C-alpha cells in the first residue's frame, strides 16, 4: 500500500531558540526531565518515526503529555517541528508557508477535535461548510456539499440549528461532517470521541468505521484509550514521553508488548474482545474410536481432551482426561467414556465469545465453515492467556523495583 503520511526523525521542543543546546541534548538521548532542568525547554517529541499508509486507520495512543496531540499537529503544521521531516503525499509539510500551507490544509485534510471546536456563532451547516467557505466556494455549492456531509452522519434535519442546541454526540457528528465536507484524503482525529460517554463513543466508532469502509479515507486517530485504539485501529502506535514505544497491529500490541509500559496498558484491556481463538487453539490430534480407554488416556498426554471424528472429519464425540480415568477405574470401554455434549466455535471467534462454553471445563472443538475440526481449544488455555499479560507486568515491575 502507498504511504500517505510519514514522520521521520521528528523532534519538537517548546520554548525560545529550541534548535541549539536543547535539541543537541535531546538527540543525544538525554531524558526529557533532565533537558528541561538544564535548558528550561520542554520536549514535545523525540525522534518520532511512523508511516501511515493510504486507506488505513492509524491510531496513535498515549497518555496526556505523551506528545500524541503534538505529533498529529505537525502533520498539518499547527505545530512546526524543531527537527526532522513530515511528508504528506511526498510533500514536505514543514517547508510550506502562507497560502501554500493554507491550500494544503484545506484540500488535503480535515480535522476533528476532542471538544468538537465548532464555531458557536455559526449554524451547523455553516460550520460544516467552513472549509469550503475559506476555499471561496459559492454558498449554494457549499451548502450542497455540507448537506451531503451531514447526511453521512445523519444530521441533515439540524442543518439550521446552532451547535449549542445539539447534544455532545451530535456535535461531534457535526465535527466529523465538517472534516468530511471538503472531501479530503486524510482525516486527523484528535481524541475525537474522548469527550463522549461510553455508549455514544462506541456508536461513533462504529459510525466512523462504516464511513471509512465507504469512503476509504486515511485516518490518523489520536486517543488515550487503548480499548478504542485496539478496536478501531488497523495499526496502533504507542507513545510515551514524546517518543514512540511500539507500532503494530492490535494483536501485536496485545500479544507481544514491546515493553512493560505497553504491557501495563494492555493489562486494562478486555483482551477477550481482541484475541481470537486461532491464536491459542492447539492442533486437533483426533482420537481413534477403536482403542481402549487406557490407550485413549495415553493419547491425551497432558491435554485435557481429544475428539473423535467421523468420515468427513467432523467431531462427533470427545474424551476428557477426567472421564477416561473415571471409566477405566470402573473397567468400562472407551465408548462409555466418550461424551457428545461438547461445544464448538470458529477459529475467528474472539475469546470473549467462547467464555461461556469454556466455563463448563470441557474442551471446545474449533471447526471451519464446513464443520471439520481444525483445532482443539482447551479452556485452561483461555484462562492462562488472560493471566499471561499480568505476569509480564509483574516481571517488569520486578525488573524496575528490584
Amino acid at each position, binding site marked *: 500500500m502507498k504511504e500517505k503520511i510519514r514522520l521521520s526523525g521528528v523532534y519538537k521542543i517548546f520554548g525560545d531558540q529550541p534548535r541549539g543546546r536543547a535539541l543537541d541534548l535531546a538527540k543525544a538521548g538525554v531524558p526529557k526531565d533532565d533537558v528541561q532542568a538544564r535548558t528550561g525547554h520542554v520536549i514535545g517529541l523525540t525522534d518520532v518515526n511512523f508511516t501511515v499508509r493510504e486507506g488505513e486507520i492509524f491510531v496513535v495512543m498515549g497518555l496526556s503529555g505523551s506528545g500524541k496531540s503534538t505529533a498529529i499537529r505537525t502533520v498539518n503544521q499547527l505545530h512546526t517541528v524543531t527537527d526532522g521531516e513530515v511528508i504528506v503525499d511526498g510533500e514536505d509539510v514543514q517547508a510550506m508557508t502562507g497560502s501554500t500551507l493554507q491550500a494544503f490544509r484545506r484540500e488535503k485534510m480535515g480535522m476533528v477535535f476532542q471538544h468538537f471546536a465548532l464555531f458557536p456563532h455559526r449554524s451547523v451547516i455553516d460550520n460544516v461548510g*467552513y472549509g469550503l467557505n475559506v476555499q471561496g466556494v459559492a454558498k449554494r455549492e457549499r451548502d450542497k456539499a455540507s448537506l451531503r456531509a451531514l447526511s453521512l452522519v445523519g444530521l441533515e434535519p439540524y442543518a439550521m440549528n446552532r451547535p449549542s442546541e445539539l447534544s455532545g454526540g451530535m456535535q461531534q457528528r457535526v465535527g466529523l461532517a465538517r472534516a468530511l465536507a471538503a472531501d479530503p484524503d486524510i482525516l486527523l482525529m484528535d481524541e475525537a470521541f474522548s469527550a463522549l460517554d461510553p455508549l455514544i463513543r462506541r456508536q461513533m466508532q462504529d459510525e466512523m468505521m*462504516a464511513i471509512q469502509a465507504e469512503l476509504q479515507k486515511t485516518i490518523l486517530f489520536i486517543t488515550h484509550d487503548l480499548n478504542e485504539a485496539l478496536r478501531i485501529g488497523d495499526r496502533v502506535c504507542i507513545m510515551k514521553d514524546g517518543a514512540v514505544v511500539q507500532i503494530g497491529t492490535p494483536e501485536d500490541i496485545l500479544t507481544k508488548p514491546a515493553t512493560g509500559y505497553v504491557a501495563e496498558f494492555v493489562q486494562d484491556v478486555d483482551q477477550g474482545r481482541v484475541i481470537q481463538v486461532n491464536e491459542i487453539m492447539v492442533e486437533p490430534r483426533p482420537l481413534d474410536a477403536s482403542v481402549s480407554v487406557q490407550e485413549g488416556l495415553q493419547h491425551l498426554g497432558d491435554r485435557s481432551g481429544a475428539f473423535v471424528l467421523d468420515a468427513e472429519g467432523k467431531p462427533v464425540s470427545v474424551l476428557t482426561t477426567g472421564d477416561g480415568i473415571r471409566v477405566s477405574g470402573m473397567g468400562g470401554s472407551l465408548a462409555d467414556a466418550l461424551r457428545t455434549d461438547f461445544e464448538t466455535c470458529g477459529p475467528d471467534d474472539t475469546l470473549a465469545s467462547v467464555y461461556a462454553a469454556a466455563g463448563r471445563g470441557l474442551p471446545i472443538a474449533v471447526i471451519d465453515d464446513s464443520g471439520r475440526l481444525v483445532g482443539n481449544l482447551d479452556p485452561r488455555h483461555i484462562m492462562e492467556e488472560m493471566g499471561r499479560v499480568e505476569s509480564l507486568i509483574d516481571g517488569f515491575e520486578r525488573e524496575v523495583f528490584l
Partner: protein
Amino acid sequence: MSLISTADQVPVTDNEVLDEFTIPFGSWTEESVNWITLNLEGLLDAIAWPFEFLIDNFVEGFLVDLPWLWLVGIMFLVALLVRNFTVAVGTAAGLVVCGLLGNEYWEETARTIGLILVAVLLCVIIGIPLGILAGRIDAVWGVLRPTLDAMQVIHSFVYLLPFIYFWGVGAVGATMATMIFALPPLIRLTNLGIRQVPEDVVEAARAYGAPERRVLTDVQLPLARPAIMTGINQTLLLAFSMLGVAAIMGAGGLGRLLFRALGQQDVSLAASSGLAFFILAVILDRIAQTEVGHTNLFSRITTAWKSRREPEVLLDDPAFNAELRKGDTTPADPTIDADDEGAEGSRTPVGAPERAAIITSIVGGALMVVSLFLTWANDASKLTGYSRRSDQELPGESFAGWAAEGGSWFAFGVTAMGIFVILAAVRVLVSSAGGRWLSPDGALLAAVGGLITAVGYFVTSPSPLTVGYSDGIGMWVAILGGVIASAGALRWVQVAPYGPRRPLKPKIVAAPIVLGITGVIFAVVSMFSMWALDERADAVITPEIQAQIDEVVRAAAAGEIDSGPAGSEILRIRAQAATAERLVVDGKSSDGPGLGIWTLIFSAAGAVAAAGAAGAFGLGDRRQWLGGAFAMGAGTGVLLIAVGWVGSLARASDPNFTSGVGAMIGGIAGFMLLAAGNIVIAGFERSQVYGDLVLDSDSNQSTQSSARASTDPAGTDDAVRTTVAT
C-alpha cells in the same frame, strides 16, 4: 563648593538639610515640557488634529447647530438600529426632557453627546486594534499590561495635567484626557475577549485552511464580541464620568454647567444640569449595552446585506422567516413563556354586543381626534393668557385645538387618547386578539383619560387679566367624544369575553390602595404648590415703583443724570421689584387656573376606583378589572392635565414666566394611579377557544416529540445506518 560648606553648617539630621540637596525633578520635567512645546509643535498639532477636526466639524459644526428635534430623531434611529423599539422610545423621551429643560441645557446636552461620541470613537479606533494585537501577540500584551496598570492607578485629575501643558485649556485637551482615561477597559476587554476564545476553535479555523486574517474575522472577533461590546460600554461610561471632571479644564457640555453650579451655588442650575446629565448617562448606557444574538434590527440589516446576492438563503433564517420561528422546537426559547402558550391558540371571536360597544368607542375616539382641528378658544387664549400678555385680549380671533393659543397640549392629549381608543378598537375588531394594551381596558383607560383631559381644559380658569374669553366648539366636541368613547368602552369592558388569567386573590390587595392614597397625597401637595411663577416686571410694577421709575426718567430728561446710568438705574429698580415680589400662583388660587383642585378631585376618584379594583368593596372580577382600568384612566387624565399645563405654557411664554413644581407633583400623582390600576388589570386577558387550543398544542406536542425521537441516540443511529447503507 558651597554644598559642602552649607552641609558643614547644617547637621544632616536636621530637616533643613533636605533643602540643600533637592532633586530638581520638577524643573527637569518643566524643561522637557518647554522643549517639547517649542520644538515638537508639529507633532503636538498632528496629535491634536483628529480631535480638533471632529470637535469643530462634528460637535460644534453639526450636533450643536442641529435643530433639536433632528438630534432626537437621529438618536431615536440609532437606538432603534442598535437596540430595539423600547430603548429607542426611551431615548427619544429622555432627550425631549433634556431639551425641555431649556435651550442652554439642550445645547450642552448635544455638546456632551458629541464629545462622548468623539472620545468613544477615537477609543474604538485605537483601543480595539491595540486589544486585538495584545490578544494575539504576547509581546504586545507584555508591554501594554504594565502601561494599562499604571494608567488605572493614576488619579483622574492627574490625567488632565499633561494635556493642559501640551495642548492648553479647552475642549481638545479635555477630550484627549477623556479618551486616554476611558481607553484601558476597552483594550483589556478586547484582549481578554480574544484570549478567551477556545484554543481548539481557533485551531479548527486554521486547520481548515483559514488565513490569519480570517481566523480573526471569522472566529476570534465574533466570539470576542460580547467582551468588546462590554468594553465599549465601559469606555462610554468612563468617558462620561471623565467628561464631568474634565469640565475644570474647559471641556464643554453638561459638566461645565455642573461645575458652574457648584461655583455659584446655584441650586436650579445644578438640578437641571444634573438631571440632564443623569438622563444622558442612562440613555447612552442603554444604547451601548451588549446584546448578543440576532434580535436587533442592526444585525438583521447586516445579515440582509450579506445575503444580498442570494436572498433566498434568508428564508432559512428564523430572524427573517416567521414560519421557521413558529415551528421552532428549540426547547430553551426564552420568548415563549409558559403563560403565553395560548398566544398560538385562537381567542374568542368578537360577538354582536361587543361589536356594537367597539363601534361606539370608535365614534367617540374619532370625535376626540376631530376636536383637534376645531376651535377651542375664542377672543383670547385661556392657557397662554397666563404666560403671554399679548394673548389676553384677541377680539374676533379663534384658535384651533392644535394652536398654542387654543387647546394646545390639552388638545394633543385628547387626540392622542382618541387615537389610542381607535387603535385598540380596530385591532380587536380585526384580529380579536388585541394584546396587552390594545384591549377593552386599554380603550377605557384612554377614553377616560381623554375625557378628564378635555374636562380639565374646560375647568381651567383663564387668567384674571383675560378679556372676553369664551370656549370653542372643539372643546365641547372633545368632551362629547370623551363621554361617548368612555360609555362605549365601559360597555365593551362589561360585555367583552375577558377574565383573570389566574383566580384573583379573595383578600384585599394592599399595593393599589397604598399607591392610590399616595397619589391623593401627592395631589393635595400639588394643590398647595406653585403652578406658575410670574417674574415678569409688569406683573409687580406697583404705583410706588412706577413713581420711582418716573422720577429717574424725569431726572434724566432734565439732564440731572446721564442717560446711561439712568437706564441701568431703571433696570435695577425693576429687577429689585421682580425678585422682591414674585407672583406665585398655587393650585387652588382663584387668580390661577385652579387645576390643583381638579387634580385632587380626579385623583381621589381614581384612588377610589383603585381601591375597588384591589377588592376593597367586595366587587366581582369584572368590576375589579373595570375599576383598575378606570383608575388608570384617571391617572392618565391627571398626568395629561399636568403635561397640558406645563406644555402649553412652555409653548408660548414671555420671559420670566414659568410653570411651577405643582404641575410636576400632579403628574406624579397621575403616575401613582397608573401604577395602582396596572397591578390589577395586568392579570386579565381575553378568553380563548379551548377546543382549538388543545388541538393546536397537541400537534405542537407531536412535532416536538418526533423531534425528540430523532435526537434520541437509537433513532439517530438508525438514520445514520440507513444513510450510510444507501
